[in-house]
């Protein structure tokens, strides 16, 4: 591997101990990915600020003690604590203190305290073709697929090391040759009605992740009306059930104006027909609960956008929430400020909805510990919450979530999934 003079100076400790450690991590990743050199990145999104145990703190403290400062614009992913509403935390206070301490350490390195898993909903997002170093699987897949920016699958540790050094291995999805589609998923016989529904996208994403694994999937047959929020839900689901970091949707995403271009002129390794019954099976697989009992609803994974708030506001203006059912929306503090400025907060206060910022309901104890069954419109939440926070989950659309919360029982539209 060829290192520049500056890379070598960093690695030799001439830019301080933290930069030495950061460059050591970057070069270790470079050799794991067989990169021949490092390249500059324009920005970073750092995931390491979520507390996973003492190792998270040990690493950040080692960096801060070594004088770490980020050298490129850097946003921060969710932490363990809602810093604006700390009273929502129901776990052990010592863990909350550690989580808060970790968040402070990352902010003290010069990262922006954005605390969101959806940095693409902030101003100044990466441009087409720009190299960035993003962590958080849903943010990675969005940056690559929807924005056409270039990030590999960065995770904890390497993310902040890229932010400190401004360098990443020239490997993976930074390279043209790794961005071409490899597997084709073709929508086959899916009704126009289902194609127009938001709920299709997380379910389709679940199928895409299961089929693609680590391959780059190409999805053919989505309507031109597909929104950014729908692609966000698809990507988040595919990055949970599989290791998808880039997908192409023909006619929708910037590197896939046509099927041929999405595959870079090559043939797909495999073609999967996505039929209504395949989608119905995936939808069922996202539900673990076996009755219509309901304790809570959680939406906003990834963090709710302002457009999603607009839709939920309309739904909640029409109906209330049954006593005994908790309703959570996870979002960023930036989107919350926008909700407030649009005058929508009263709707949420009136309905008794809890707005969670800076964190998410499946990574930290916010749900009522006596609650067993939680409904969500997020395939990602449905995928991880049973293991992470020990609940049974019901998957449904946003409308089904609101209707169920209103009636106090799970209510879902089965007809939508029957095909036609």
């Amino acid at each position, binding site marked *: 591997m060829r290192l520049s003079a500056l890379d070598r100076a960093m690695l030799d400790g001439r830019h301080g101990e933290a930069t030495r450690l950061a460059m050591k991590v970057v070069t270790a*990743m470079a050799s794991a990915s067989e990169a021949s050199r490092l390249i500059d990145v324009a920005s970073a999104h750092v995931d390491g600020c979520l507390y996973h145990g003492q*190792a998270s703190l040990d690493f950040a403290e080692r960096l801060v003690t070594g004088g770490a400062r980020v050298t490129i614009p850097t946003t921060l992913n969710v932490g363990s604590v809602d810093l604006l509403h700390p009273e929502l935390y129901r776990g052990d206070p010592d863990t909350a203190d550690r989580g808060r301490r970790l968040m402070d350490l990352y902010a003290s390195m010069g990262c922006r305290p954005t605390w969101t898993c959806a940095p693409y909903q902030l101003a100044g997002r990466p441009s087409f073709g720009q190299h960035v170093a993003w962590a958080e*699987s849903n943010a990675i897949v969005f940056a690559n697929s929807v924005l056409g920016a270039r990030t590999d699958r960065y995770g904890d*540790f390497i*993310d902040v090391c890229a932010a400190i050094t401004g360098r990443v291995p020239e490997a993976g999805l930074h390279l043209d040759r790794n961005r071409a589609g490899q597997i084709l998923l073709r929508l086959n016989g899916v009704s126009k009605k289902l194609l127009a529904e938001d709920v299709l996208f997380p379910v389709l994403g679940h199928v895409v992740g299961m089929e693609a694994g680590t391959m780059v999937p190409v999805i053919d047959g989505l309507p031109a009306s597909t929104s950014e929020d729908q692609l966000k839900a698809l990507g988040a689901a595919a990055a949970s059930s599989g290791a998808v970091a880039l997908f192409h949707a023909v006619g929708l995403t910037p590197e896939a104006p046509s099927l041929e271009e999405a595959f870079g002129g090559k043939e797909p390794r495999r073609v999967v027909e996505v039929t209504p019954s395949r989608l119905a099976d995936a939808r069922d697989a996202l539900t673990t609960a076996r009755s219509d009992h309901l304790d809570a609803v959680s939406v906003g994974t990834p963090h709710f956008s302002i457009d999603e708030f607009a839709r939920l506001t309309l739904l909640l203006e029409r109906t209330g929430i049954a006593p005994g059912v908790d309703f959570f929306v996870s979002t960023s503090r930036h989107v919350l400020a926008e909700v407030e400025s649009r005058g929508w907060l009263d709707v949420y206060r009136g309905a008794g909805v809890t707005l969670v910022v800076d964190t998410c309901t499946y990574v930290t104890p916010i749900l009522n510990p006596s609650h067993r069954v939680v409904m969500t419109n997020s395939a990602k939440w449905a995928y991880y919450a049973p*293991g992470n926070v020990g609940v049974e989950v019901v998957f449904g659309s946003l409308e089904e979530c609101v209707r169920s919360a209103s009636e106090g029982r799970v209510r879902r539209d089965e007809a939508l999934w029957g095909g036609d």
Partner: protein
Amino acid sequence: MTRRCGVATEGRTLVAGSARGRALRLDEPLSLWGGMDPATGRVIDRRHPQSGQSLAGRIVTMPSGRGSSSSSSVLAEAVRAGTAPSAVLMLEPDPIVALGAVVAAELYGRRVPVVVLDEATYNGIRSGDEVVVEAGEISATVRVARGSG
């Protein structure tokens, strides 16, 4: 297929180190984050075929990475807590697993070798096999010392 014992095969080192232990074969990729509890080393992803089994001290074979980018932290934390696999053998390289092992070595001085194997070698390792891993800076030797079934 005849199982030959004691045959050493070469792999590509992602993270150097040596380890010896019983193999645990993961039939599907596992996201360590959300999929493994670093306090116990157990698989907590209820959809995973090896759900409930402990990775602690095992030579874990895993075809590829999956899911969340927070898995590096979970592996480092498991190394700190003493619940980590003693080595990870993969079919496809996964930088997220490699990074967790690299940082754990820097912070705690404990090495979990991560090695990429060819398909024949990878498929020849079964749960319960006694496996010895010697991973140098570039290449690694993996020896299935004894197959116990």
